[in-house]
C-alpha cells in the first residue's frame, strides 16, 4: 500500500549529446538539469515521506541529492529503478538505433522493465518518493492503466517531472507534471 511519487531526473550530458546510456557513472546533470530539479524540489519542501529511493544511474543519483536537501532524507539506491538496458547501443547516439522492436535490437524488453517497476511498487509502503527514468516511469504508469508499450506512446515523461501512483486504489494520480499538483500536494501533506 503506497503512494509513490516518481520523479524523472533532470537534463544530463547524455540528453544534450543525444546519447543513450544505461551506465551508472557517466553523463552527469547539466547546470540546467540541476536547476530544474532544484525548482521541482522546492514543491516538496515540508512534505514528510516514509522512504526515498533512487536509480543507481548518475543523473538520477544527482537529482536525488538535490531533492534530499528539500525533504531532509537520503535516498537508498534501488536497482529496480535503473535506466532500461540499451544492450549493444549503450553510449551510442540515438540516431544509430535502427527501426524495429525492443528485443530485436537487444534492448531490455518492455515486460522486463514493467516487471521490475511493478515489483518495486508492490514492495514499498507509505508515502514514497523515487527518482527514475523516462521509460521506467512510463512503464509503471502504463501498467496501472492496464495498457502495453505501443498503447502508452502518449505517456510522455519529460525530464524533471513528477508522476504518481496509488498502489492501494490502483490509480494513476499524476503523469509528467512540471510542478507538484495541488491535489497531490494536499494528499501528501495530510497523510503524513
Amino acid at each position, binding site marked *: 500500500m503506497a503512494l509513490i511519487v516518481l520523479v524523472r531526473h533532470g537534463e544530463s550530458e547524455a540528453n544534450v549529446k543525444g546519447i543513450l546510456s544505461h551506465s551508472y557513472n557517466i553523463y552527469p546533470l547539466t547546470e540546467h538539469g540541476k536547476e530544474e530539479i532544484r525548482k521541482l524540489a522546492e514543491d516538496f519542501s515540508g512534505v514528510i515521506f516514509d522512504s526515498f529511493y533512487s536509480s543507481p544511474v548518475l543523473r538520477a543519483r544527482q537529482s536525488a541529492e538535490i531533492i534530499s536537501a528539500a525533504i531532509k532524507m537520503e535516498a537508498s539506491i534501488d536497482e529496480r529503478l535503473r535506466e532500461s538496458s540499451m544492450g549493444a547501443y549503450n553510449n551510442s547516439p540515438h540516431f544509430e538505433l535502427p527501426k524495429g522492436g525492443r528485443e530485436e535490437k537487444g534492448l531490455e524488453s518492455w515486460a522486463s522493465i514493467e516487471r521490475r517497476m511493478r515489483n518495486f511498487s508492490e514492495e514499498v509502503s507509505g508515502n514514497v518518493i523515487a527518482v527514475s527514468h523516462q521509460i521506467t516511469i512510463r512503464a509503471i504508469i502504463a501498467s496501472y*492503466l*492496464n*495498457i*502495453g*508499450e*505501443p*498503447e*502508452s*506512446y*502518449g*505517456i*510522455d*515523461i*519529460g525530464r524533471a*517531472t513528477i*508522476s504518481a501512483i496509488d498502489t492501494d486504489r490502483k*490509480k*494513476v*494520480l*499524476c*503523469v*509528467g*507534471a*512540471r*510542478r507538484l*499538483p*495541488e*491535489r*497531490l500536494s494536499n494528499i501528501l501533506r495530510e497523510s503524513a
Partner: protein
Amino acid sequence: MGYIVLVRHGESEANVKSILASRTGDYHLTENGIEHANNAAKVLKGLPVSCIYSSPVRRALETAEIIRKEFGDIRITVSESIHETDFGRSEGKYFHGRISDLTDKERLDMDIESWTSHVSRMKDFISSLDDNAIVVSHGFLIKAYISDLIGLRSDEAYGINIRFGSISIVVPEESRVYAVGSYSLSEATRRKLQ
C-alpha cells in the same frame, strides 16, 4: 462493449505555421499530415466500427476521409460538438509552443476555451454514441477528455501527449483506456476490440 477510437487529425498547414486556427482559414493536411492519416487508417483497418465522426475543421475532415477509404461502406458524420478549441480573441494569432501546455490561467488570459469546457462537450458527445465509433478531432479535446476519464485534472496530466494522427481508445462505461496517443496496437489489444 462500446469502445470509441479517438484520432487526432494529421499535421496541417496551420500547425506548421503556428497559427491558432479554429473557425478561420482553410488549412489542409501537409505531406506529413497525410502520412499521419494513412498510418491511422492502416492501424484501424478491420476494427468493427459502425461510424466515423469528424470535427467540421478541414484538417479533421481530410483525415477522416483517408481513414474512411479503409472501411468500405461507412459514412462520415460531421459534428459541431467535436470542433477545435474556441480560441476566442486569440483566433488567427501566432502561437509558438504547444497549445496543450498552457495552464488554466494562461488560457483564461488568452481568451481560449477552458479545460473543463473541452471535457464537458466531449463527454456529452460521447455519451450520445450508441455503438463502436471512430471519432476524428483535435489534440487538446482528446487529451482533456482522456485525462478526465482516468481521473486526472489539468495540472496532473501535463505528460499526456496526443500527437498528430495518434490513436486513443476508450471504453466510457468502464472509465477505461485501451490506448493513449499511440501509433500502433498490439495483437492482444486488437483481439480485445474484435
